[in-house]
């Protein structure tokens, strides 16, 4: 039942993999903590790009398409996994409160600031997570809004609130580690 010849590489896939590979490799850290599962998710994203690129119709930019596919796959991955318990993820308000209170939920033992940042991001609900991950990759509010399918004002508000909380939490985390 297996095909004798390997499936052909879809047009543009090689370019997409080269141009966006590193960013996609970082994106999976925002959705999975375990390295093996990160790798698994990364393969799922690349497979989705492989399968969907032939249907890309150019209505959105290729970059928007790539990031939408990646985040859709990652969010589905999180929601389908019983391990992730979507009901435990925090809305922005609870995330802000928890960080202000120095909530143990958000306390991380990791010395590595990048790892702490990823851990904090993974507490967020999928929609907010997508927004902040796009921001961290360097996109502006208009671009984030287009990719996430929300208004630029909504994107700007979310970015502002989450960014402020992340910076505060990271600063507090550094002080804790320095004091030890």
């Amino acid at each position, binding site marked *: 039942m297996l095909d004798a010849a390997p499936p052909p590489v879809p047009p543009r896939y090689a370019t997409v993999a080269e141009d966006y590979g590193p960013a996609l490799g970082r994106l999976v850290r925002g959705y999975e903590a375990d390295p093996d599962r990160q790798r698994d998710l990364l393969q799922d994203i690349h497979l989705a790009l492989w399968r969907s690129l032939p249907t890309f119709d150019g209505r959105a930019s290729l970059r928007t398409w790539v990031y939408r596919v990646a985040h859709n796959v990652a969010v589905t991955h999180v929601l389908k996994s019983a391990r992730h318990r*979507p009901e435990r993820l925090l809305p922005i308000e609870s995330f802000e409160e928890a960080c202000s209170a120095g909530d143990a939920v958000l306390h991380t033992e990791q010395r590595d600031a990048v790892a702490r940042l990823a851990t904090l991001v993974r507490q967020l609900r999928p929609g907010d997570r997508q927004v902040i991950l796009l921001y961290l*990759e360097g996109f502006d509010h208009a671009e984030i809004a287009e990719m996430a399918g929300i208004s630029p004002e909504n994107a700007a508000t979310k970015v502002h609130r989450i960014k402020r909380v992340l910076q505060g939490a990271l600063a507090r985390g550094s002080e804790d580690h320095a004091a030890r």
Partner: protein
Amino acid sequence: MPHDDDDLRALWQSAPAAGSVSLDELRKRERALSLRVKVRNGAEYVAAAFVVVAFTFYAVRAPSLGVRASSWLTVLATAFVVWKLRRDGSPLPPPALGAPLGESLAHHRASLVRQRDLLRTAPLWYVGPFVVPMVLFQVSVALERSPGAPFAVLMRELARPLFVSLLVFAAIAFLNVRAAGKLDAKIEALKKVADDL
């Protein structure tokens, strides 16, 4: 520590990528996925075909009118279940993978709702159509074994096999309805995620 926007972005972008993906790995996954879909679709038809062939044989060859009638009813019930699964159980056409997250979530939720509704009504369309043929089949077989037997004797003969069969049907119905209940929690979680966008 990051004090401003650039620092936070620089910090994130300094993270090493979680590995890379080779073409060979992708091709393997693509083949595996296609195979899984083919096997899943094929299994449904193979099971139905088996039931249809077996009961058509009884329908044509059995000496008893009751067994023949119940066999035809079983064939019809199987055809109905297959039709129902094709009409209401096939996956919804997916949105483009590159659709905004809200659309993707709405599709995912609609798929789960469809699946839940199908499971919840399984006692009617999946189990129900087989009850009458099953009862008729067992009554006919009992009458064949003990022609002219008093009603009480017949009932004693039928009690156990009927009870076991109805218990199996009840268990199947229960398991399907319970699975539907589990999907309710997932649907609700998805709704909350979508409301957050």
